[in-house]
């Protein structure tokens, strides 16, 4: 194990997979400039700076993936994916199915998003749910350096098109990361960084540490919270979540993205369609608002779920009898 940042872990994953499989190539605006060690080792044919043209980067990756290569593309920021939607949604997501299974699209699309840098709504938009809603794609969004490495490696080895979202706020956080090039983190398996009995907190990316902090505080107040880190948003590890709900009877979903038709909606739906009898309290969504990300630090922080809100939401379920109703959700959340 080596201690490194998420950014370093991702680069290491690319390094190892490009060594292992010469069909892997990396393309993007600045892909070669920003990862010079990769560019040196694998040369300009496999590590390509591209023109600033997301649609053709993505389309080219899809065409190449169907033709023997295994591209990884870096589209920089999640809102830039709007330029690449045809290639990702209509081609990568659909043409395997529509052709009757004639081709596969082993490709990975990297994009950063999330608060912490005050970049505002055109560089920070947690729109991962759009790709969960679209068919044919896998969607990953890890919370630790280790998972970032292990999941990126798994994504590169996967035969499906994978959207890999990198939380900007976690990019420079450090963690212990496996040195074994053979280690991967399987796609579709959630992690349970904390076990508990009374309530299930489900989250991913930046808000996983928020949930862990909330769980620690809740412990002080006699509440035992389980924390699930989804890591993979599609496929979703519904078994893990349902098992936990079966034990705790209470579900709170926490994420930075809007809850409206988001992952929180999906998990709340999962609970009420498939674990109805186990539920002992209303499900609560603690999510970002139905608003673009404002740049101002003050507003950015107000938009991101904080540990105290999670604690309040849990206590609002009446677990220690202290709170009632929709406590823990600020007023604007009531509408979502």
């Amino acid at each position, binding site marked *: 194990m080596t201690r490194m940042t998420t950014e370093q872990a991702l680069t290491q994953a690319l390094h190892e997979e490009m060594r292992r499989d010469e*069909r892997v190539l990396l393309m993007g605006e600045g892909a070669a400039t920003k990862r010079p060690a990769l560019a040196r080792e694998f040369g300009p044919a496999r590590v390509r700076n591209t023109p600033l043209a997301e649609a053709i980067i993505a389309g080219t990756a899809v065409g190449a993936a169907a*033709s*023997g*290569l295994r591209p990884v593309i870096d589209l920089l920021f999640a809102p830039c994916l709007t330029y690449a939607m045809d290639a990702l949604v209509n081609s990568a997501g659909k043409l395997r199915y529509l052709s009757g299974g004639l*081709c*596969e699209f082993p490709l990975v699309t990297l994009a950063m998003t999330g608060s912490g840098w005050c970049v505002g709504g055109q560089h920070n938009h947690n729109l991962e749910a759009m790709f969960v809603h679209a068919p044919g794609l896998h969607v990953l969004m890890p919370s630790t350096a280790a998972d970032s490495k292990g999941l990126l490696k798994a994504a590169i080895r996967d035969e499906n098109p994978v959207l890999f979202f990198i939380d900007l706020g976690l990019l420079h956080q450090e963690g212990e990361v496996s040195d074994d090039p053979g280690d991967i983190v399987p796609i579709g398996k959630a992690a349970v960084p904390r076990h508990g009995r009374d309530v299930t907190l489900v989250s991913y990316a930046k808000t996983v540490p928020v949930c862990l902090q909330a769980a620690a505080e809740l412990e002080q107040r006699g509440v035992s919270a389980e924390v699930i880190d989804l890591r993979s948003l599609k496929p979703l590890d519904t078994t893990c979540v349902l098992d936990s709900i079966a034990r705790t009877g209470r579900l709170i979903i926490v994420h930075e993205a809007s809850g409206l038709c988001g992952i929180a909606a999906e998990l709340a739906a999962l609970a009420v369609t498939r674990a109805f009898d186990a539920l002992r309290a209303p499900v609560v969504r603690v999510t970002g608002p139905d608003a673009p990300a404002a740049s101002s630090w003050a507003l950015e922080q107000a938009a991101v779920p904080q540990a105290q809100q999670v604690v309040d939401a849990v206590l609002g379920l009446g677990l220690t009898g202290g709170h009632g109703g929709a406590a823990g959700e600020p007023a604007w959340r009531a509408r979502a």
Partner: protein
Amino acid sequence: MTESQTQTLLRQFETLLLIRACEEQLVELNRQGAPDTCSSIGQEACAVGVIDALEARDRILTNHRSAAHLIARGAEPERIFAEVLGRIDGYCGGRSGTLHIAARELGIVLTSTIVGGELSLAPGVALAQKMGHGDPGAITAVFFGDGAACEGIFHEALNLAALWQLPLLFVCENNQWQAYVHRLETMADAAITAWAEGHGIATQSVDGNDIEAVHSAAKSAVAAIRADGRPQFLELRTYRLRGHSGQDDQAYVNADELRYWRSRDPLLLLRQRLSEAGGLDAHTFAALQHDAHTRIEQAVAFAQASPWPDAASLTEQVYA
């Protein structure tokens, strides 16, 4: 004309007849309630002229107006009809229907019906070839319309292909129409080649209804790509003789324009050429046409007998 030239043209004429018969039958089936199709009637010489200049190792991408490309590449009309009718024996098991038919066994590797989708995918196919995947020396040809040339992805694809020196043949079938809009409502007359030339790509613009002109332009473009690995651009000036799709009555089309292009029907032109060269008498013509229609009738019968896909397969092959 040499004997071998006549033989080539005759063979091509047979293919044109087969495509025409196929398209006319698809229109008729649609009239009877089968799904809508976009017919390439009037554009057959583009498909045959270009595809005859390619080799089996080459790869092709096409779009919604694909029947001519498929048949020119040797696709079985049986499986095309089965696909259009949504049956299990179609090239894509009925999943595609008419709009996104791919036939990898024929090298028609990807088809997108999002206008411009084929242009987004083609550089990647050529990149894989350049990087050693597929047969050595193989190239990629992408067919698209004048409408697709208005999409931004056209510019992005041209730039990338030129910059990365991809073995890619751009084939724009400029049929003067973009669904219900005339091309000249959307661009200047010589715009398409001007745009391609702005990218420094070698460009030819030829009469798309003259199969010899198409074929020779395509051959020289393909040879150039194989020689220097750089993209080439072909504009084929042609005409969509029927409506955009299905039973579109073309009420919005200028009658003189239509009359002019009808007189330049590519089948008519090639038939005249062959007749003048003594390669096609009325009797042979009638026989060839009869063969084409017979083949298409068989294809329809095959397709109509093909089973529907099983509803239980609905969610198969979404994921690998």
